[in-house]
């Protein structure tokens, strides 16, 4: 699935960062890795990271493919609000679970279609095209909920947010399933190749016969669907829809997760699993900072610092300054040497924490 990653060395920054953050959490909070089974559901800080990280991970799955086409989708947070508002409002109106899910996901698909048409057919720059729905989407969600915070008690819908399947919390299961389905969809078909081709060079791809508008629309539609799923998970978790705050600023976390995962904003190669790892790094940091009892004022600073390190480790410019492995520097850009001769002080390598 992660064809961007021929060897493990290339993904070292991501997996290393995740390991380092988890280890740091463990140092601050010795019970961090303890997992217990209670009422047929797993509990523990690690499970919490997975569970709380699910919405951003879901967004990151769709966002990865949009970014791979050299685009970006700023509207995912607003789409979450719309899908949550639709689900809560219809549930309260007495609809059954399946129609509610269909309507909610359908709303996400429509939002994605709108973005896709603006980008692919009207050729509006993605950042501007999706900004429209980012702004308008919250308004639409507020119209759906009529400005209220709509709550519901339907156990069926709530199960999506707080239930569990084979002891694993539902948000984690849903994320894993969506990741698997998406990976199958892009890697078992030729869609992945076309997405990467369009992202690297839209003109050349069109000249080779790639149906670039359809590819672009497809990724935005899928991104809308992922956002709708994330919106459902959040609404189901809190058993209500808050049109003003659901998914607020999460589009930025999702973009960050994708970038931390190593997919370039310039398009091309993408790794779905790595984006999910990126989302988990973000969540592990959030959880760690909460557990550590740092003053909340420090939270954002610490987060920014760790992210900078992860991104710097991927930067081709920085790799130039790192001690080189023997032999001429490879012409390929950001391949990091598997074992740097000297550990850099800021490197979050696992050994530093042990």
């Amino acid at each position, binding site marked *: 699935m992660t064809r961007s990653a*021929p060897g493990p060395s290339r993904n070292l920054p991501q997996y290393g960062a995740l390991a380092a953050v988890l280890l740091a959490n463990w140092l601050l909070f010795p019970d961090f890795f303890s997992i217990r089974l209670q009422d047929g559901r797993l509990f523990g800080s690690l499970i919490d990271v997975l569970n709380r990280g699910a919405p951003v991970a879901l967004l990151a799955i769709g966002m990865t493919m949009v970014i791979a086409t050299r685009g970006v989708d700023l509207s995912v947070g607003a789409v979450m609000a719309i899908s949550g508002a639709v689900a809560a409002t219809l549930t309260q109106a007495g609809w059954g679970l399946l129609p509610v899910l269909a309507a909610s996901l359908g709303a996400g698909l429509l939002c994605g279609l709108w973005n896709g048409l603006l980008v692919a057919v009207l050729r509006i720059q993605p950042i501007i095209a999706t900004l429209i729905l980012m702004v308008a989407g919250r308004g639409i969600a507020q119209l759906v909920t009529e400005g209220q915070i709509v709550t519901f008690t339907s156990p069926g819908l709530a199960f999506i947010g707080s239930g569990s399947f084979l002891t694993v919390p539902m948000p984690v299961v849903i994320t894993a399933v969506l990741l698997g389905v998406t990976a199958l969809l892009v890697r*078992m*078909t*030729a*869609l992945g*190749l*076309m997405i*990467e*081709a369009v992202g*690297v*060079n839209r*003109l*050349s*791809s*069109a*000249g*080779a*016969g*790639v*149906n670039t508008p359809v*590819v672009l629309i497809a990724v935005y539609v899928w991104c809308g669907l992922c956002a709708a799923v994330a919106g459902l998970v959040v609404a189901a978790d809190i058993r209500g829809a808050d049109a003003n705050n659901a998914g607020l600023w999460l589009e930025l976390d999702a973009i960050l997760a994708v970038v931390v995962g190593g997919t370039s904003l310039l398009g*091309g*190669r993408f790794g779905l699993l790595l984006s999910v790892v990126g989302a988990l790094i973000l969540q592990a940091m959030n959880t760690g900072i909460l557990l550590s009892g740092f003053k909340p004022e420090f939270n954002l600073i610490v987060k920014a610092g760790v992210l900078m390190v992860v991104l710097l480790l991927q930067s081709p410019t920085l790799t130039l300054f790192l001690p080189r492995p023997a032999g001429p520097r490879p*012409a*390929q850009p950001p391949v990091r040497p598997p074992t740097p001769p000297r550990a850099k002080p800021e490197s979050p390598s696992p050994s530093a924490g042990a």
Partner: protein
Amino acid sequence: MTDPTPTASSPLLAVRGLSKAFLGVQALDGVDFTVRHGEIHALLGENGAGKSTLIKTLTGVYQRDAGTVTLEGRTIAPRGVEEAQRLHIGTVYQEVNLLPNLSVAENLFLGRQPMRFGMRFGLVDRGAMRRRARAVLIPYGLTLDVTAPLGRFSVATQQIVAIARAVDMSAKVLILDEPTASLDAQEVAVLFKVMRTLRSRGIGIVFVTHFLDQVYALCDRITVLRNGRLVGERRTAELPRLDLVAMMLGRELEAAAHRIAPPVDDAEEDARPPLVRFRGYGKARSVEPFDLAIRPGEVVGLAGLLGSGRTETARLVFGMDRADRGEAAVDGQAVRLRGPRDAIRLGFGFCPEDRKKEGIVGALSVRENIILALQARQGWLRPIPRRRQEEIADRFIRLLDIRTPHAEQPIQLLSGGNQQKALLARWLATEPRLLILDEPTRGIDVGAHAEIIRLIERLCADGMALLVVSSELEEIVAYSRRVVVLRDRRHVAELRGGEVAVDRIVAAIASESVPVEPRP
């Protein structure tokens, strides 16, 4: 080099021994160039001749390595466009370098607005600016709303405003870089009138163009550059077109080109049904309507100077640009080419001139680049299995001798020739019936060059139809059964059989604009 005929008046602008190199590549090598008062001087040359380097050195974009530039006897060395402008050298580019969102008046006086209350920190005197703008434009026959944004007017009007600005800033030398490239005939006429008026006022105009008819209609003298060197300066009246084209292309016209395409019975050939046939096919402002038929196992060459409509023809045939007139047929069936996907479905393939921008998908591997068109045609739901992809890639890497460490190498790391071969492989993998090649050998080393020509001949022998654009006339003559010659966006001649020879092509390019009826 050819000494310019001595004139009574001293030259306005004299360039002597100008040299400029970029990273060791000599873009200009000891070039002399003279512009006199009140003349329109054509600066001509093919790709890489050094025209734009010369202009940019004159306007201060580049600094010269050696040589002198004197304007009315005074040595100048501008360090920027603004300084050049102050030294009385004004430039107008094809893509007008003004600000479309500002008004006509603002564009005319940008950076030198009439001020109230002091020049440095005063306020712009808008009333005075408007009045002066109207006055400035009157000699050009332009009466328009000078407060309207410039972008609202046609390119021709914008160009005249740009000229007016340059002249009003006391330009003595006015450089027009392909001003007519995006104008229609009527707009060209207006522009020419302006240029003639300026000439009569003693301004020296340097005119860069690809349209030979315009050169002969307007210019007093011609300077031809080739490969960074001066070929010669001539009076237009004393230079037959044929000699001009020969100067630009650098060919010995007597030398009959060696021809390797097998002689064929033309009558018998023409009886064969064509694979594709275009009738009255064309696109406004791109290429005039043309007729074209290509038969299986036949190479048709498209020859002409840069900007003559060769590439435009190739792009229309592949559907990269959409024709707005005429009809196309494949196997006698009418077809519509709304885009490359239509063309590919019909069995066409196209290797574009700009490989990097429109051909390769740089960051993807050689394998992915080779199978891309085949995969796109099959659709995303029918992926080519990885094993099969590797087989295809390896086969073509062997067959075309693509030099790459392995099929997974990003294609952007390959040399130009190997990129071109990979692009050819992309199309060959789709087993095309018609392959369109736009400058297939440009920027390619000698070895790969010969291989690609051999490949063209082999494909043709296998029954494929080929349409090849090339600036290399020997090359075109070597493999083409027929050659379509273009000039000024028009198909002006079709040579076949024994007529296919370099001197005939050059003669057709140089011919007066009497439209030659294309034969069916």
